[in-house]
């Protein structure tokens, strides 16, 4: 078989004037930036909607359920297209044009898409965490004279978060991987950088190996930090296996 291995390719110059290894690392920066911004967004929105799903008002629960189902049942790729191609057209003319003319339009839209997509999955975990608590804790909050908001803020959510930490770290690992879908709307993150390196050099397997190793290193670091966080936050007496064994990405 004819395949010419050339591992030195990473130190050769790319058309951008930097070695190919730096092309990949520049892609990594975009991957991490997208994942981090989307993660903050997903945590905030996920907490809000996950909490709303456990309230007692039926119409609030229905709206929150609708939110979760909407973002869970459309593939991430299609959601990226919706934010990138469709959303600017549906907004009032000037605002849509402004978004399209942003210098980092694909970064902004990728972050929005990934944030909303992941927020629905975080919401499900938050709901699970709150429902895992004994009913008595909510009642105890009420008995102490706390308002519902205070009960959530000081009693239910702090415990719920400690219970779902393992599941959330899984979601965090997933958001880094899912950010690769942003290459379809033109964001040059790690996978896209790998693909462009391949197109310029035809050293397909070196490029793919390089990216795979970088993703592996990130996921080992993330796993290590997750274990540490889980150890620190574990609630004595609770089994917090999380959804480590379940499917999903």
């Amino acid at each position, binding site marked *: *078989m004819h395949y010419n291995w050339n591992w030195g390719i990473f130190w050769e110059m790319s058309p951008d004037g930097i070695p190919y290894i730096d092309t990949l690392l520049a892609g990594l920066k975009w991957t991490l930036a997208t994942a981090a911004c989307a993660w903050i967004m997903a945590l905030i929105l996920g907490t809000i909607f996950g909490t709303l799903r456990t309230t007692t008002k039926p119409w609030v629960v229905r709206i929150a359920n609708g939110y979760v189902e909407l973002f*869970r*049942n459309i*593939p991430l790729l299609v959601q990226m297209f*919706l934010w990138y*191609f469709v959303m600017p057209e549906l907004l009032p003319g000037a605002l849509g044009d402004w978004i399209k003319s942003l210098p980092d339009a694909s970064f902004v839209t990728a972050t929005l898409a990934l944030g909303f997509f992941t927020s629905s999955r975080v919401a499900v975990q938050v709901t699970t965490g709150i429902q895992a608590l004994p009913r008595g804790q909510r009642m105890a909050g009420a008995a102490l004279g706390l308002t519902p908001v205070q009960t959530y803020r000081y009693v239910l959510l702090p415990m719920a978060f400690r219970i779902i930490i393992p599941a959330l770290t899984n979601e965090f690992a997933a958001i880094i991987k899912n950010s690769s879908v942003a*290459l379809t709307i033109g964001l040059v993150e790690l996978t896209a950088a790998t693909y462009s390196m391949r197109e310029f050099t035809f050293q397909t397997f070196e490029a*793919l190996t390089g*990216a795979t190793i970088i993703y592996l290193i990130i996921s080992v670091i993330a796993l290590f930090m997750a274990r540490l966080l889980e150890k620190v936050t574990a609630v004595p007496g609770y089994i917090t296996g999380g959804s480590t064994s379940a499917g999903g990405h």
Partner: protein
Amino acid sequence: MFSNFDFDVIQRSWVYLFTTGLKFTLILTFSAMLGGIILGTLLAMMRLSSNKPLSFIATTYVNLIRSIPLVLVIFWFYFLVPFIGAWIIGASEPIQVGAFQSALITFILFEAAYYCEIMRSGIQSIPRGQVFAGYAIGMNYWQMMGNVVLPQAFRNMTPILLTQTIVLFQDVSLVYVLGSVPDFVTSASKIAQRDGRLVEMYLFVAVVYFVLSFGLSTLVKRFQKKIAIIR
């Protein structure tokens, strides 16, 4: 809001999209599910085996696949499969592999890692005593697995396996990155670009995916309740 949009493009193309693109996506999903569950179950048995090298290989494979993004895996297999094919049949040049076969191999190998983790917890949910009982009445490993452990593991895990299949159904859309595989999203985006109707077409694609995924997950939930009562 929709005054300057032309939803005619959907009326013109939906029959074509459903009979080619969506059909391709559904067949690919179903075949990858079958292959993925079979390979995933074998991987789970390897992971749980007392044979150290076997369990090491399976564990490494599953952890490796689970830590890299699907898009990267799609690229890997898209370029690698022709070489592996040439190696298997002893050809000197990389062989040509059709779009469907290439995508199918990719999704079987990728999803098997996820199905493996589901089946592993399924197998582990069966009390160990049943394994010993199987051996005690003279069964060998395959008889014990095939007749005692796996049927129960499958039944316990059916809802999660089906939920993962809905994830797979959504994942199949990512073959779009190859550009040459005629799945639902790729076909729709080709028509959208040809007719300059991106907004209408992508909204339509989103609605179709939503209806199918939501419908399927509602069915799975109902099914889950049903088997929960039997147990």
